[in-house]
């Protein structure tokens, strides 16, 4: 299958801090990739470069056959770990706002998902709890039909119940589909079943890049066990 994301010798420096160094990899169409690693390992920077939010210091980046342009961004859905939506906007306003940028936005599907998740369209984003804001971001992303979906720590700082609900939404959206997904997380549990490949980042470099099945065959270990092996801790 063709590669939808190609990066070569990617390097990113913030002042004197090296966030990414010499990252070279390709992601094929339909792959669901887990980007794992501890805090500060470069996961978010990597996803942000693919979204065009952060500019690489040097290196080659190609997404959907071109550099990250306006046209390419239309086919990317990005879920940030931060509260990026305007807090003064009502959910319905946000939906209309996003629809004007993304022609693939299915407003009816979004409304249905919001209703199902108990999120009131008349509520302002700022009035939602952290878990609900996180779910809102995921719903807005999966109400579209992007070729590539990038999720940056979709489970950070939320309770178990919200985590489970977001996980179910993602599973429904991704499993059996043709979409390419990159999910950055340090909570591997529960996601293993949807990952087709895992990439471990450590201090800005890729330290492991394996197909999940091969990982199990080669090392006889789950992603979680491998994670602890690589980064230390309980195993």
């Amino acid at each position, binding site marked *: 299958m063709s590669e939808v994301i190609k990066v070569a010798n990617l390097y990113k420096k913030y*002042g004197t801090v090296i966030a990414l160094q010499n990252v070279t990899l390709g992601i094929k169409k339909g792959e669901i990739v887990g980007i794992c690693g501890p805090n500060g390992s470069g996961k978010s920077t990597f996803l942000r470069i693919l979204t065009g*939010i952060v500019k690489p210091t040097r290196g080659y980046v190609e997404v959907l056959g071109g550099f990250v342009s*306006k046209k390419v961004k239309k086919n990317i859905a990005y879920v940030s770990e*931060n509260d*990026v939506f305007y807090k003064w906007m009502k959910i319905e306003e946000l939906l209309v*706002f996003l629809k004007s*940028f993304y022609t693939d936005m299915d407003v009816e599907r979004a409304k249905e998902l919001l209703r199902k998740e108990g999120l009131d369209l008349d509520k302002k984003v700022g009035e939602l709890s952290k878990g609900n804001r996180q779910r809102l971001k995921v719903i807005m992303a999966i109400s579209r039909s992007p070729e590539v979906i990038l999720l940056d720590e979709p489970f950070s700082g939320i309770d178990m119940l919200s985590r489970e609900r977001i996980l179910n939404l993602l599973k429904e959206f991704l499993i059996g589909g043709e979409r390419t997904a990159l999910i950055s997380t340090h909570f591997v549990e529960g996601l293993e079943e949807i990952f087709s490949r895992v990439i471990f980042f450590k201090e800005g470099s890729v330290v492991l890049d394996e197909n999940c099945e091969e990982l199990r065959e080669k090392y006889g270990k789950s992603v979680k066990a491998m994670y602890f092996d690589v980064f230390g801790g309980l195993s």
Partner: protein
Amino acid sequence: MIAKLVWKDIRENFINTLIFTGLILAMTIYGLVKNFKDVRSLAVLPILIVAFSFIMVLGYAIYRGFSSLKREKDRNTLEFLLSLPVDGREIVTSKFLAFFTEVLFLSLCITLFSHIPLFYMLITKAIGKAEFISAVKTITYIAFNFFLLALFLFIVFQFYEILVLSLKTKNFFVNAILFFVYLYLLSELIAIFKKVFGFLPDQAPILHTIWGETFTIMGGTNYQGLAAGALAGVVLIVSGIILFNKRVEV
């Protein structure tokens, strides 16, 4: 897409615009009530309304220029904006257009409200029709001057903000030095542009008022200065867009 971004900015600052409008109206009504019996003294009121209101508007222009993008960065919404299928041209231009719309609305309100005392004077026959028309022209002319100045200030400070965001300097003193160097270089650039527009008349547009006074545009700025200011504004917006596209990130 620019229209949607402009709408978003206007909607976000709607309350500020309303508060300003309310303040200006309150000032007008207070002035009218206070000088109700002394009709002649009402003649100064329109100028006072325009002057005080635009001092606020100019302050607001500086604040908005300084903070429109910084605020987005501080609230993480810059990340959202940058992830949308838009580029620096749309983001920077939309900020300017939103401010343009707001300040146009405010300028129209100020001009309109400052005419209330004049209408009262006309009705009470304190001034004649010719004097009234002359005064209306003058007030509109002064308001237009301030409107242009507010736009220019916004552009100047927005470019400085983009400069700081792209250089990622957080030290206050470094930023302060950068600010003064930037202002110096800008004044030099305007001086060069003035020479470029040397073929234009070396005099300020003059308008006579009902009080026999003369008003010149922006304190005597000549046509060359006006053209140089306009060109500098365009250069700052274009440079801001290029800098934003090349350097601004979260």
